[in-house]
C-alpha cells in the first residue's frame, strides 16, 4: 500500500514536469502544424536564463523566496525574446511548405540555439539549487520529498488550467480554435493570421522556457540538456495526440505513472517504459489518445 502511494506520488511529480516541458510543443503543433524541434533548445535557453538570474539574485543576498519570481521572469524574458524572433525571422517562411522542410528548418534553429547558448553561457555548469532547497520537505509514505516538486506540480496545473481558459473562454482563444479548424475561412472572416501565429509561437516558446527555468534548480545546467527534453516531449505529445492540450496532460500522466511503477517494481525496464507506452498507444490509436482524423483538402 505504502509502495503504491510512493509510486503514485513519483508518477505525479514526473508527469507534472513532463507536461510542463511538452505542452508548448503540442500547442505550436496544434495551431501552426509545425513540429518545433527548437522546443528543446528553448527549454535550454529558459534553464540557462533562469539559472543565471537565480545565481545573480542569490549572490546579491536578496529575499530568498524572490528567487522563484526570478525564475518566472527568466522564462518570460527568454520566451518572449526568442519566440517572436524565431517565428518572424525564420519559421514563417516555411508556412505551407513540405513538413520535412519545416522539420529541417526547426532542427537547424535548434542547432543554432545550442551553439548560441554555449556562446552566451559557456560550457561550465550553472547551479541554481537555492529555490529547490528553499521550501523544505514533505514526508509522504515515510520518505521525504522536496516541497519544490509540488510547486512544479502546481505550476503545471496552473499552466494547464490557464491554457484551457485561454483557448475556451477568451476571444483570442476562439480565434485560435477557428484557425486550427480552417485557416482559410478564418482569414476570409478577417482574422489576422500572422498575429495568431506569432502569438502562439511566442506562447509556446514561453512554455518551453518555463519548463526549463523551473527545471534549472533541480539539475546541473549543462550544454546538451535540450536534446534530452525534445525526445521526451515528443513522446508525450505523440502519446496524447499531436496538437491536443488534453492529450499532453493525459500522455504525461500515463508515461509518468508507468515509469514510476517501473523504477520501483522492475528497474531494468525503466529505460524502455516511455517507448513501450508510446508503442502500445500507437498500436491501438495511431493518432494518439486525443488525435483526430483530418479530412485531406484537395
Amino acid at each position, binding site marked *: 500500500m*505504502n*509502495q503504491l502511494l*510512493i509510486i503514485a*506520488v*513519483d*508518477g505525479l*511529480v*514526473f508527469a507534472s*514536469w513532463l507536461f510542463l516541458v511538452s505542452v508548448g510543443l503540442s500547442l505550436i503543433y496544434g495551431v501552426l502544424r509545425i513540429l518545433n524541434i527548437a522546443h528543446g533548445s528553448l527549454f535550454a535557453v529558459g534553464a540557462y536564463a533562469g539559472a543565471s538570474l537565480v545565481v545573480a539574485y542569490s549572490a546579491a543576498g536578496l529575499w530568498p523566496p524572490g528567487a522563484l519570481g526570478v525564475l518566472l521572469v527568466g522564462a518570460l524574458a527568454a520566451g518572449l525574446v526568442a519566440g517572436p524572433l524565431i517565428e518572424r525571422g525564420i519559421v514563417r517562411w516555411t508556412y505551407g511548405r513540405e513538413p520535412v522542410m519545416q522539420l529541417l528548418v526547426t532542427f537547424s534553429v535548434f542547432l543554432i540555439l545550442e551553439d548560441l547558448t*554555449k556562446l552566451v553561457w559557456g*560550457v*561550465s*555548469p550553472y*547551479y541554481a*539549487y537555492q529555490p*529547490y*532547497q528553499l521550501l*523544505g*520537505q514533505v514526508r509522504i*509514505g*515515510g*520518505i*521525504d*520529498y*522536496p516541497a*519544490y*516538486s509540488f510547486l512544479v506540480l502546481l505550476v503545471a496545473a496552473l499552466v494547464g488550467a490557464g491554457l484551457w481558459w485561454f483557448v475556451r473562454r477568451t476571444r483570442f482563444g476562439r480565434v485560435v480554435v477557428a484557425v486550427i479548424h480552417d485557416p482559410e475561412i478564418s482569414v476570409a472572416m478577417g482574422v489576422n493570421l500572422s498575429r495568431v501565429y506569432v502569438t502562439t509561437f511566442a506562447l509556446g516558446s514561453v512554455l518551453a522556457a518555463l519548463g526549463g527555468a523551473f*527545471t534549472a534548480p*533541480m*539539475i*546541473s545546467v*549543462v*550544454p*546538451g*540538456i535540450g*536534446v*534530452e527534453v525534445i525526445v521526451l516531449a515528443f513522446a508525450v505529445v505523440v502519446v496524447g495526440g499531436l496538437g491536443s492540450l488534453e492529450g499532453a496532460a493525459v500522455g504525461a500522466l500515463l508515461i509518468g505513472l508507468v*515509469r*514510476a511503477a517501473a*523504477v*520501483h517494481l522492475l*528497474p*531494468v525496464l*525503466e*529505460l524502455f517504459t516511455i517507448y513501450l507506452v508510446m508503442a502500445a498507444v500507437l498500436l491501438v490509436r495511431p493518432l494518439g489518445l486525443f488525435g483526430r482524423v483530418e479530412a485531406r483538402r484537395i
Partner: protein
Amino acid sequence: MAGSTKGWLALGLVLGVLVTMVGVSTWAGPVRPAEVRVGIVTFLSGAAAAPFGIPARNAAEVIISELNAGRVPAPYNTPGIGGVPIRPVIIDEAGGAEKQVAEFRRLVLDERVDLVIGYISSADCLAVAPVAEELRALLVMFDCGTNQIFEERSYRYVFRTHGHQILDNVGAARYILRIRPQVATIAGINQNYAWGQDSWNTFRESMRKLKPEVRVLAEQFPRLFAGEYSAELSALLAARPDVIHTSFWGGDLESFLIQGLPRRIYERSTLVLTTGDTVLPRLGQQIPPGVVIGARGPHGALAPNVPLNRWFREVYTNRFNVRPVYPSYHMSQALFGVKHAYEKALAANRGTWPTKEQVAAALRGATFDTPSGTIRMALGNGHQAVEGVAYGITSRFNTATKEMELTQVFHFPAECVNPPEGMKSEEWIARGFPGARCP
C-alpha cells in the same frame, strides 16, 4: 675532352657514394624532427566536456608549455622531448566512435602526428585501438575505463597509462568494508550503458566475494543524461540500504547530488561516488559530510604529496583558477609516460632519434613517475598500466579551498586492486582475488 669526361665520371661517382651514404644514414633511423607532433583527443563539447574533457585539455596545455620551457621538476626537467619541442594538435572527441575512427586516420595520415594521446569514452577507445594497430600508429589512451581492451586482444602500438575501471570498484568495495565493516545491505544507481553496468557489476561482485552475506536491495539504471531522479531516489530511500554505489559522472552526478540533499538520502545511506573527485571543487557545501569520494586512482584531492604533484597543482591552479581533477591527472600520466619512453629509447639509441617501434618497446613494461605517484605498465603484456586507488570520506567544509575535506583516506596499492597479468578481471573477482596483496 676525354680527361674532362673522366673528371665528370669521377665526380658523379663521388656524388653517388655520398648520396648513398646519406640515404643509408637516413634509413638507420629517422632524423631528429623539428617538433614532436602529438594528437590530443578529448571532449571539447557535449556533456563530458566540462567535467572531463576541458580539465584534460587544460592539463595538456599547461604541461606541454612547461615541458617545452624545461620548467618541470626532475625527472622531466629537460626541455620538450629530448630537447625537441612538443606541438599539440587538439581535436574534439564528440561525435561518436565512427567519427573518431575517421579523425584518428586524419590525424595520422594528414596531420602526420607522431602519436595520439586520447579518448575518454570507452566506446572510442575500443573503436580506435584496432585502427591504430592497422596504421602502425602509436596510441596512448589516457582516460577511458573499460577493462576489455587488453583483456580481449594484444596490441603492439596501443598503450593505456592509467588503471581501468576494475580498480575503482574493487577499491570502493574494500574501502567500504574497512570503514563500515558491519555493512549488510547495498544498492546501486548507475547510468544504463556499458560504464554504469560494468562499474556496478564489479562493485556488487566484489562486495559479494569480500562479504558473502551482503544483500543487494536495489539496482537502478536510469538512462544516460536523464537529469531527473525523483522516482529513483524514492526507490532508494524506501529500500534503505546501508551503502549506495554510483559511478555517475558530470551533470548526472551533480543533478543526483542536488536532488538527493533535500531528500535526506545521505542520512539513511552511505553514498559511494567513484568519480566524486570531479565534483568536490564544483559543488562545495552541496556535498554533505559522510560521502565516500573516489578519484579513479590516487588523483585530485587524493593525490600523494610528492614534488611532481605539488608542482602540477600549482601551475594548473595558477593558470585556470581551479585545481586539477582526475582527468587532468590521467592526461599528465600519458604525457609523462610518452616523454619517459621517447627519452629512454633515445638513450638506448645513443642519441639517434627513435622509430615508433623503438618508442613502443621503451614504453612496454615501463615504470615512470607522475603527479599521482609511480606508474607501472604491468598488464596487457606491458601495455596496460596499474596504479593504486585511494578513497576518503567527506568531513567538513574548508573555507580556504572551498571544498569538503576528506578524512579516513586509505590508499590501496596496485597489487591489491588489479588482477595479475594474464587473468581476466571477471575471473579474478569470481575466484576471490587470487594473488591480491592488500595492507
